[in-house]
Structure formats: C-alpha cells, structure tokens
C-alpha cells in the first residue's frame, strides 16, 4: 500500500482513538447520556475492512461501531450530534450512539441487540444480489455475538444462497465482562465456518495491512458471486465494555500483551519512510477534528418533542 493511502487510514484510526478519549469525557460531564461503548484497540479492524468497500456497499454495525462509522466516511459533526441526541444528528437524535445509520455512506446501521445486525446484513446481501446493485454487505459483530443463534442461522442461509456478504467477527476477547474462554470452549471462531462450507479466516486484527488483505479477498469473493466468508479478527478491547463498566475482571497485565494497532500502523508508516512529524501532524489534525465535532455537537439544538406526535400520527392513526 502506498504511504498516502496508509496515512489516510491511520488518520481514521486516530480519529476513532480521539473519539474514544473525548466521548467518555463528554459522558462524564453529562453532555452525553446513555452508555458509550468505545473501540480503543480495535481500530484496525473496522477501518481496514471498510477501506476495501465501494460506494453502494453497506455495513451493519453494533453497539461498538465507531470504527465502522469512521471507516465508511461518516461526517464527524453529525455523528457527534446524534451521539448527543441533537436534532441535526443522523437519526435526528432518535437513535443515539448504538443506533447510528448513514444511508449515504452505506451504514445501515448500528444495532444494540447483540447479533441483531447479522440477519439484517444477510437480508441486505440478498437485496444486493436480487436487485443487482453490484454491492456487498459487511456485517460486523463480536466474539460474544458469535454465540447467538442468529449467527448460525444466517451463515447457513448466506452459504446456501451464495449471498454477497462478509461476516467480520471482531474478537476482542470479551463478551461484555465474560472472557472468551468462559463463553466458548473452542476458541477458534473461524472454525465455525467449516460447518457451512464457507471460508473461515483468522487474521491479526491489530495489523491493518493484514486486515485489508483478508478483507479484500472476502469482499472480492462476495462481489463475484461466490458467497460469504467468515473473517475473525483477533484484537483486544483496551478499555471497559462501556462508560458504565466498573471493571475488576480484565487483568491489567493483559492489555500489555496486546499490541496497540495505532502503534503497529505508525511503525509501519515509519518503516516505509514517513516522517515522525508527519504522523504527529495527523495525530493533531485528528484531535482537532474530533474537538471541532464535539463542539459542533454541543452547540447543536435538541429536537422538538413535536416529532413524537408527528411520528405517532403517521404510524398509528386510522385514516
């Protein structure tokens, strides 16, 4: 990959990291209500996978979706507005941080039901195929979600119907507070693909270049009509499960064993000859962008409760 492109991806990764620093602060100050699930440590997966998608492709996300949003090119300002429940947010403040959608950028969308996005993605893939959009759908979900029935039902269906979908499991080693070895006995999630006769690929989820390579193959396969792939990206959730987490179950030493994907990528950039100052410039630029978006969000207006009546009238009243 050329440096310029990798710098763009690195920028996006830093955006996510800065978001994950900024959002809990806003939450602590009461400017964001509702729990925030941060992606610190998982930046390479979402940013990497989304970078191989084209206009018209779609993704389904989760409660922990910031990397997917940034990866798909969401406008930071209106993302922040939504997270703060403002009228000009992507969902008019009606969805909030777990339920972000951005149709223009193919984000359809966040989902707070663990595993809930998997059937939605499978259906989007069906529509891509039937309506001949040429698009593919990527479904992101966690290691914990891979134990839900929806995972199984959908992988079977997608395999049967050869749907243009890529299932990306971000294995961050925890389902909420439950360590992976306490929620599954066989830790190789990619092996679950064997039962459906589809490829199951494990990848180092902290190395964006590795992620991209695997994602490209899976997306190509989907786009060319050969069917789904299960990609399992090994990564680590460096913070608590959400802003409500009071900790006590993640051994502090564990985080040291896992590489920080931002460091991995910045080292790749340095090794490829990019100057340290240039990287630092990007870090600052990202920080500023996030700061500006936070400001935008804070200054945005709250929705007028009249929207409630409008919605009710639209859906409920016998005409």
């Amino acid at each position, binding site marked *: 990959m050329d440096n310029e492109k990798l710098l763009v991806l690195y920028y996006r990764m830093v955006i996510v990291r800065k978001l994950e620093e900024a959002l809990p602060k806003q939450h602590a100050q009461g400017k964001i209500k509702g729990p925030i699930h941060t992606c610190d440590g998982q930046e390479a997966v979402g940013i990497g996978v989304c970078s191989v998608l084209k206009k018209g492709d*779609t993704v*389904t996300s989760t409660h922990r979706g910031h990397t997917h949003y940034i990866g798909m090119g969401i406008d930071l300002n209106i993302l922040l507005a*939504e997270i703060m429940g403002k009228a000009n*947010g*992507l*969902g*008019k*403040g*009606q*969805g*909030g941080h777990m*339920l972000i*959608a*951005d*149709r223009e950028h193919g984000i*359809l*969308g966040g*989902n*707070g*039901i663990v595993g*809930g996005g*998997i*059937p*939605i*993605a*499978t*259906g*989007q*893939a*069906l*529509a*891509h195929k*039937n*309506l001949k*959009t040429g698009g593919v*759908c990527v479904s992101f979900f966690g290691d914990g979600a891979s134990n839900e*029935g*929806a995972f199984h*039902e*959908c992988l*079977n*269906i997608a395999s*049967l*119907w050869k749907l243009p979908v890529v299932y990306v499991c971000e294995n961050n080693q925890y389902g909420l507070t439950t360590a992976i070895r306490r929620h599954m006995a066989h830790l190789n999630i990619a092996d679950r693909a064997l039962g459906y006769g589809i490829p199951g690929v494990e990848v180092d989820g902290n190395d964006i270049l590795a992620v991209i390579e695997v994602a490209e193959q899976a997306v190509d396969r989907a786009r060319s009509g050969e069917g789904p792939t299960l990609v399992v990206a090994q990564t680590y959730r460096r913070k608590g499960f959400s802003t409500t987490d009071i900790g006590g179950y993640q051994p502090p030493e564990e985080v040291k064993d896992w590489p920080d994907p931002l460091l991995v990528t910045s080292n790749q950039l340095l090794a490829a000859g990019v100057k340290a100052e240039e990287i630092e410039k990007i870090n600052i630029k990202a920080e500023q962008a996030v700061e500006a978006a936070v400001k935008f969000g804070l200054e945005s207006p709250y929705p007028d409760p009249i929207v409630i009546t409008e*919605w*009710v009238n639209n*859906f*409920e*009243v*016998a*005409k």
Partner: protein
Amino acid sequence: MREIRYREALTEALHEEMLRDEKIIILGEDVGVYGGIFKVTNGFLDEFGPARVMDTPIAENAIMGLSAGAAMLGQRPVLEIMYMDFFTLALDQLVNGAAALPFVYGGQVEMPLVIRTQGGAGSCAGAQHSKSLEAWIAHIPGVRVAMPSTPFDAKGLLKSAIQDKKLTVVIEHKQLYNTRGPVPEEEYTIPFGKADVKRRGTDITVIATSRMVLEALSAAEMLSKDGIDIEVVDPRSLRPLDKKTILESVAHTHRAMVVHEAWRTGGFGAEIAAMISEEGFDYLDGPVTRLAGTDIPIPYSPALEPHVIPNAETIAAQIRKVLK
C-alpha cells in the same frame, strides 16, 4: 359476485401484487416447492422463479431479520411465518429491528415488509400450533396488524398491506382457508384502520376478530329467533384500530362485547374494551364484557380443545346473560 375461498383470495392478492411489482419476493418455510403448507403460494415458484419465491431454512429469527434488511434496500419481501406460534422466535427482529429502525435511524430507511402468518385453534394441533398471539404484535408501535375474517377482507387487506409499503403483519386463520365468500374480479383494496360492520343490529355491539366474526354471525342468527338483534363489528385491522366505527356502533346499541380466540388475560380484547369504556363511557348502559380463549395452554384432546375457544353457542349465551 363470484365466490372464492379465503385461500384463493390470498393467492390472488399475492399473485396480482407479484405481477405488479418485480421487487416483491415471497419467502418462508416451504412456500416454494410445496407452495406453502396451506397452499397459498401454490405454483408461484414455477411462475416467478427461485429468485422471487424462496424456500428458507427453518430459522425464524434469521428470516424475519433478513426480510427487514432486504426491505431496507428497497426489496419488498412478503415473508410467511408458518404458524403464529413460531413468531415467538422472530419477535426480536420485529420489535427491535423492523419496527424500530425506521424511527431510530431518523427516517433514513423504510420498511416495506409484509409478514403473513396464521393462528387459531380447531384442528387439535395442540398447544404449540394453535395460539392466537395478535396481542403481542399489536402492542408494537410501527407495526400494522390485520386479521381478515372473510375472503373479501383477506384479499383487500393483503393487497393494501403490500401496496402501502409499511411494515404489516397479516394474521390469517387456519380454519378459514377453505371458507368461501364473494370477491370481486376487479381490483380493490381495503384500507387499514377501517372496521366493517358485518351485521347491523340494535341491541348490542359485538366486536369480534378473525374466525370469531363467523361465530358471532352464527350467534346472531340464533339470537334473532329470540328477538335479539346484535350488531357485529369486525375491526379487520387491530392496528391501527378504527375506534370511530366501533364507538359509533356502541353509541347506537349502548352495549358492547368483545370476542376473540386469544387468551383472555391481556388479549387485544382488553384494549378494545378499555378503549370503549374510556372513550365511549357515556354511551354504555352496561359494562363491556369480553369472551375469549380460556387462560390455559391449548389442550390437544378433541374433548377439551372446543371448550377453551368461544363459539356461536357460548357467544349467544353470554349475550343473553348480558341483555337480561
């Protein structure tokens, strides 16, 4: 007017809409090769091909969710959930998915998804294949719910369901597929939220749903011999509910009774009765009573099953009691 069966009316509705709009697909368990276990989609696979008529694996949660996902991108799925009893497996994707996402995504997606299912007892199919769970579905904002009782209503409501491009659940009744009734050959639809007064009468308004409409009409015949003249109102869609027609009827009869097959406690009859009592209090000469399925898992035995579901006799008996 020609008479056709409820099943045929549904088939016609689907067939006409499939011809009208290529984006409509039909999917569900055994809807393709076999044509649906009640044969509503018989022959569709041959006519429309496997891309538009899809047998799915047995995976209710997935097929509900994937129908919603496809609808988000402009496909127009008509999903069949074979028995309403299995809706239990698909509710998450309905209430947390299809019904909620258009709102929480701020209107960025539409949900032109129609779900057909069937409920009801009467076949000795036992506790897991006989339930009427419409109260669950009709509790969900953003879902429209229809329960057609006649071939005419079945066709007209199903066509509206599809044409309106709004999330809709159409609940058929397994005992009605073979019933016959007049259905025009010409195009027509029935709007949601319009009740139908199936019989005019003066003494009491009986609001009945699905197969209970037929039982109420039989009860009316029995009662008319005793000089009791009942009005039978079929809401046809529970959500939205045509309060106006119901209240107008009660304003005129001054008495009301709600009849459904579903379990009494927390059944949708409670909503109708509460609504009448709340909004039509001054019309009422007596309490709104309910006659409904007994609060018990539906027993299999042919000696038991009939006792847990209202019928013309029990409806007539309760009316006699109320009017005494």
